[in-house]
């Protein structure tokens, strides 16, 4: 195998890893503040990608052709829609069942995700078929010894990294981040210290969902296609990545995302049948990893209190 082919695989893995990491960070943030898993997170991602697509369709219909404007509109509408969706899910689906058995929380978010997914399929024009996503970034690039490094991939990777870094800054440096960390550590104490618990939860859900929206847009721009069911795959793998890195751990989620992408890429290279069985392999890895390290590689946040 030549170096250029290897570089291509590495690039592909890096893009996948960035998407998984962005989704996984959301799972980890939600788990941090509420100790729950938001199973509709993946479908919120898909909704974000479709919101971006809708913005592009509307603007091109209105005669806007400048790629920069279109790109900005796609990203902003995706982020705005998912941030809102995330907050709505938190307010009306998750918070009302906060004290209920864990199973109910799991079911209610899973079914809410199904509602979202089915809404995309049924109500987005032509939503039951895969939709073409526009290529808005320059596809030219540098040729490095036979390997074609495309500008769009670089831009997506860098902006994804910047977003994660920005989230990290918010969590560690801002007053809001302090509030989020306080709630994650001890909800009751945080409340008595005057932190508006409900607001922190809503903002965290909006933040995590907005990050995931960017993963949805990357997915659309990279594969030039979006599909109503895409959130299921991204959600399951993102969750697995978050667990792999240890739930509640921001760095763990990022590491988990890239690790999972690496496994998937190596699997695709090493196993001859893996290309046809690409998704089968990915889900198989999820199941296997859970069997081997059910609490993640980096270790769980706290042991169960009896």
């Amino acid at each position, binding site marked *: 195998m030549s170096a250029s082919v290897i570089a291509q695989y590495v690039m592909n893995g890096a893009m996948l890893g960035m998407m998984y990491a962005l989704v996984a960070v959301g799972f980890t943030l939600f788990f941090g503040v509420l100790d729950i898993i938001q199973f509709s997170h993946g479908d919120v991602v898909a909704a974000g990608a479709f919101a971006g697509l809708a913005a592009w369709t509307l603007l091109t219909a209105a005669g806007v052709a400048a790629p920069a404007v279109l790109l900005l509109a796609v990203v902003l509408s995706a982020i705005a829609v998912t941030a809102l969706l995330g907050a709505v899910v938190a307010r009306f689906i998750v918070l009302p069942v906060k004290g209920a058995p864990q*199973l109910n929380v799991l079911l209610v978010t899973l079914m809410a995700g199904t509602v979202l997914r089915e809404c995309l399929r049924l109500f987005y024009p032509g939503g039951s078929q895969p939709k073409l996503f526009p290529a808005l970034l320059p596809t030219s690039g540098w040729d490095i010894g036979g390997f074609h490094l495309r500008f769009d991939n670089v831009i997506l990777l860098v902006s994804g990294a910047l977003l994660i870094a920005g989230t990290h800054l918010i969590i560690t440096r801002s007053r809001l981040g302090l509030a989020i960390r306080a709630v994650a550590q001890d909800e009751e104490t945080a409340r008595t210290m005057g932190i508006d618990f409900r607001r922190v939860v809503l903002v965290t859900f909006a933040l995590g969902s907005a990050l995931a929206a960017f993963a949805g847009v990357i997915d659309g721009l990279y594969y030039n296609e979006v599909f109503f069911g895409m959130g*299921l795959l991204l959600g399951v793998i993102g969750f697995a990545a978050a667990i792999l890195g240890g739930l509640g751990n921001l760095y763990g989620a990022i590491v988990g995302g890239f690790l999972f992408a690496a496994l998937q890429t190596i699997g695709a290279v090493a196993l001859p049948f893996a290309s046809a069985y690409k*998704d089968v392999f990915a*889900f198989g890895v999820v199941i*296997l990893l859970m069997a081997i390290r059910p609490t993640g590689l980096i270790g769980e946040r706290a042991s169960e209190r009896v």
Partner: protein
Amino acid sequence: MRSRAIAALFTALVTAYAWLLLRAESQGAIAALILVGIAAGILAMRTQLLRPVARSLGSNERFAQGLAFAAVVVIALALRDDDFALLLLTRVLIVIVACLGLNVQFGYAGVVNFAGASFFGVGGYTAAVLASSARLPHLLVLLAGGVTAALAGTVLLLPILRTRGHYAALITIAFALLFRTFLEVNDALGGPQGLKLGEMRIGPLRFNDPISAGPFEGSFYLRYIAVALVLVALAFAVVQRLDRSWVGVALDTVRLDEIAAASFGMDIARWKIAAFTVGNFIIGVAGALSAFMIGFIAPNNYSFAESLIFVSILLLGGIGSAWGLSLATAIVILLPEKFQIIQEYRFLMFAALVVLTLLFRPVGLVPRPLRRLVGPPLS
């Protein structure tokens, strides 16, 4: 005596309603019937009118089961030449069996399984492969469907035992997605086109010939209904015996508090394995019969969305409640098939219904009654 009369009257009413709904053709009539049903349901809940019925059914369990059995037979005979209505009725019975299996896992032991349709599919594909390649008696093929489903479940046992709650849910979701994509890319099992099955035979009986015995003539579906009804009766018997016995108490303990169960010396892993395997076996048998009845199976029938429909049935009926899930199955299967306008929207509708149920009435339509092992039943 009087309480038995109440139960019989109630069953007669429900039977008549089901018969009307199954044979109704025009969408207007069906819509009217559905509205009447919803109105009756709301009225019954508001006025507590069903209290005496529930009490009499609860205190005469055997009698109630006999009534339900008779009701299905009466409906099937009344509709004997209506192929579509009988197909729907059989489908309801088969899904009841599958959901009873899922109930052992979900409702009793608390082992989450979001791959119900996948195990249903394992049963179906086993039936398709065995019926075309091996000369096994078809009743054994049904059993084999259950055994393979149980075996397929053992793949998930280790990860499920090592995890709990959300993590275990993720594993079964991953399996459901894996199973469907596997079927689609695997050419040996027909790929996306699926497989065809020949007719079912038991001894000299050929299931796809129309029935005619003297003056009596009926659709060939009557035979499938008979088999499905036997399966429902068996599954009901197993599940209710389980529930009544110390096994049921043990499973409840495992579900409600693993730590307490463990500190009382219970082997949690063993109970979970037992419940998961028994449940998958029942689901697999139902899947095999379903494949025979439809005569054709494809990956689309076993998607994650279908698994969620099974879970919706459990939750709408009232988790752990065998009667509740039977009622919910009838609603969830019949409604979209009869009322065609909502067919396309069924996943959306039932998912939304489950969300509402969980938010406002988490116990479901017919809550699971408290078990009373000694003395008269609770009213």
